[in-house]
């Protein structure tokens, strides 16, 4: 991004109305946002009502809680953890055993409150591991979290009576009598349970950012050294944040048990920890709502993209790299970036340059997709279905030179066009920055 952009944003921030100036209005606005979130949560399964779709919505709800809890560490306290799935997984395993105990009649506890079991387990392990890990920050913390994740993952295979070995622990969520016609048999009922917990957790985690602990966590993220000299112990803050994050992760884990009626050891492995990191990062760790976007997007892509292409992992990786290279603040930061354009009413000025870039990007993307898909087809599908593949409604022979040249040409042309398209965008932003400056001069 060009410097004028950064400058413009900085100015816009300086110019922004004082956040606490009209508390009444703020509260009202916030309440509206939460009401809208609730409405979306309620309406979603009415719109997407197939079994698979409802199941995916449930997964999204779980992912949102998990990603937000992760961001309590990375985004809010500046702790890069490679082992957050440990709390999710352990919470889930305890919840699964609790659910089985409920089913066996040895425990009396409503299924709808099962997440509290996960929360307790997540909190307990957060306290234990947190005590060990939060004495450090920065890279040592990241490495210890990785080490602990590896240890727990290794243990999970060694102790099959608790972790269920390869097959994991399976349970049945339909236990006990129906309460007001709800027994959590149908997927929709499970969805609403997850949605309700998701809503509550979102509010709680947001509220946490508004407490003394939450604000001091931000201070620790920015400057742990200074925190000591205003009377706070940064280690204690990291410890509390990690324990609470573990608790929310445990809730997500318990909901996962209810959703899938199964929990396997891979859910607490390093790969799962990597995924939640991706969610938070791609969504944007600098904003509270960033991880929500990330959780929804990544969950969707993981399930949907893999239906359409074998190469989804590659696209996924490329997407991640492009985000880091060009938008390290995640999607949420891209939204924030446009605030000054909205305030100066110059968003329209960006439309045409953006459209140009979109066309260029589409060409580039088409070239990329074509090259990748042809490569995959050539390597893995050629023998089964022949050298010819169809893509974009066209037939391409993956053994001929023509289509390959075309793919390369698209890539090159797209790249050049994108370079050209960057100029008008820069010009538009300069204009916006100028407008912001004028606004400030007044």
């Amino acid at each position, binding site marked *: 991004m060009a410097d004028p952009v950064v400058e413009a944003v900085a100015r816009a921030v300086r110019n922004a109305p004082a956040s606490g100036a009209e508390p009444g209005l703020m509260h009202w606005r916030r309440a509206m946002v939460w009401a809208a979130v609730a409405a979306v949560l309620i309406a979603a399964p009415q719109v997407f009502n197939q079994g698979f779709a409802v199941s995916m919505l449930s997964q999204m709800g779980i992912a949102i809680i998990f990603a937000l809890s992760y961001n309590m560490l990375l985004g809010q306290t500046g702790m890069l953890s490679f082992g957050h799935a440990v709390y999710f997984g352990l919470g889930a395993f305890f919840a699964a055993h609790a659910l089985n105990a409920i089913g066996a009649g040895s425990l009396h506890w409503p299924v709808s409150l099962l997440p509290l079991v996960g929360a307790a387990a997540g909190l307990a392990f957060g306290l234990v591991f947190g005590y060990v890990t939060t004495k450090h*920050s920065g890279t040592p913390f990241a490495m210890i979290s990785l080490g602990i994740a*590896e240890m727990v993952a290794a243990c999970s295979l060694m102790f099959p009576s608790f972790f269920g070995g390869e097959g994991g622990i399976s349970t049945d969520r339909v236990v006990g009598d129906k309460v007001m016609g709800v027994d959590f048999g149908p997927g929709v009922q499970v969805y609403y349970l997850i949605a309700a917990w998701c809503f509550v957790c979102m509010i709680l985690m947001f509220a946490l950012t508004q407490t003394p602990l939450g604000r001091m966590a931000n201070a620790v993220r920015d400057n742990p050294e200074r925190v000591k000299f205003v009377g706070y112990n940064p280690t204690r803050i990291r410890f509390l944040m990690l324990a609470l994050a573990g608790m929310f992760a445990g809730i997500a884990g318990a909901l996962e048990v209810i959703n899938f009626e199964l929990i396997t050891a891979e859910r607490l492995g390093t790969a799962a920890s990597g995924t939640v990191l991706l969610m938070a990062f791609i969504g944007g760790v600098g904003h509270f709502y960033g991880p929500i976007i990330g959780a929804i997007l990544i969950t969707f892509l993981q399930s949907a993209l893999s239906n359409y292409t074998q190469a989804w992992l590659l696209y996924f990786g490329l997407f991640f790299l492009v985000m880091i*290279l060009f938008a390290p603040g995640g999607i949420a930061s891209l939204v924030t970036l446009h605030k000054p354009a909205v305030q100066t009413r110059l968003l329209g000025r960006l439309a045409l340059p953006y459209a140009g870039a979109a066309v260029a990007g589409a060409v580039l993307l088409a070239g990329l997709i074509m090259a990748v898909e042809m*490569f995959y087809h050539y390597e893995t599908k050629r023998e089964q279905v022949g050298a010819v593949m169809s893509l974009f409604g066209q037939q391409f022979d993956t053994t001929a030179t023509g289509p390959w040249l075309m793919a390369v040409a698209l890539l090159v042309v797209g790249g050049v066009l994108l370079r050209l398209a960057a100029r008008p965008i820069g010009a538009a932003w300069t204009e916006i920055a100028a407008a912001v400056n004028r606004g400030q001069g007044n």
Partner: protein
Amino acid sequence: MEFFLVTLLNSLSYGLLLFMLSSGLTLIFSMMGVLNFAHASFYMLGAYFAYQTSVYLGFWPALVVAPALVAVLGALTERYGLRTVHKYGHVAELLFTFGLAYIIEELVHLIWGRAPVPYRIPEILDFSAFSVFSTKYPAYRVFMMLVSVGMLGGLFLLLTRTRIGLIIQASLTHPDTVEALGHNVPRVFMGVFAGGAALAGLAGVIGGNAFVTEPGMAVSVGTIVFVVVVFGGMGSLAGAFVASLIIGAVQTFSVAFDVSLLTLFAKLGFTPDPQSAWMELWKVTIAQAAPVLPYVLMVAMLIVRPKGLMGTREG
């Protein structure tokens, strides 16, 4: 006695291989502050490039060609990737290498397939060098050790006898000062990154055929190398060396100990209830836990001494 000697040799060769990997990682971390998650991926690429080269040219050219190719990739990674994300801070850099490792693995899947490739030890080295009582010791392991030691010597000379080496060495302990002296020109960064990658590539060339060349090899070795670097102390080459040997020894020797808590309890005259849910835990032997021990060691080390064994700085 036989077991001890053989295991000692094994632990040495394994430890030296670990050092080839961890030395590059340490150099890169010291200079640039980047914990390179893709480092083990360069190791994997070294093995695959060596395999591909050996198909056409044989093993010996591969010993040079593969690390060189990896070095070029390393330089490109630094120039067009890390340098771009550098301004966003270390977390972004770390995540960039994280994503890169992911993509390299997927590309390896695509180009060489997901099954292991038949990258074999050259026939000229495929014999047993000597016998320790009844156990044969393969010549290739001796060769591996020679290459590692040779590399160790070369690195030592480079660091102590050349100007560039002195700059690198200075930045191990005083990165800020070196920066202030105007030495941290991007080219040095690029060179160190390429050099570190080449070391990993070389380790791949000689490790790929001793073990297995397959797409999972990066992941399986990657975390251990991290453990070595963190355990030895970030930014300390000597620490990385000692840690490599220690971790190598721990992993090989612990296999020999079929001792569990149960054995310990028996010695203390205490017999736990065999129906107890904890029985599984009591029964775990040290041998069983061998591959997990490095992580235990690392976590313990960081708790006791966050700088690591010989580290000079934290984080």
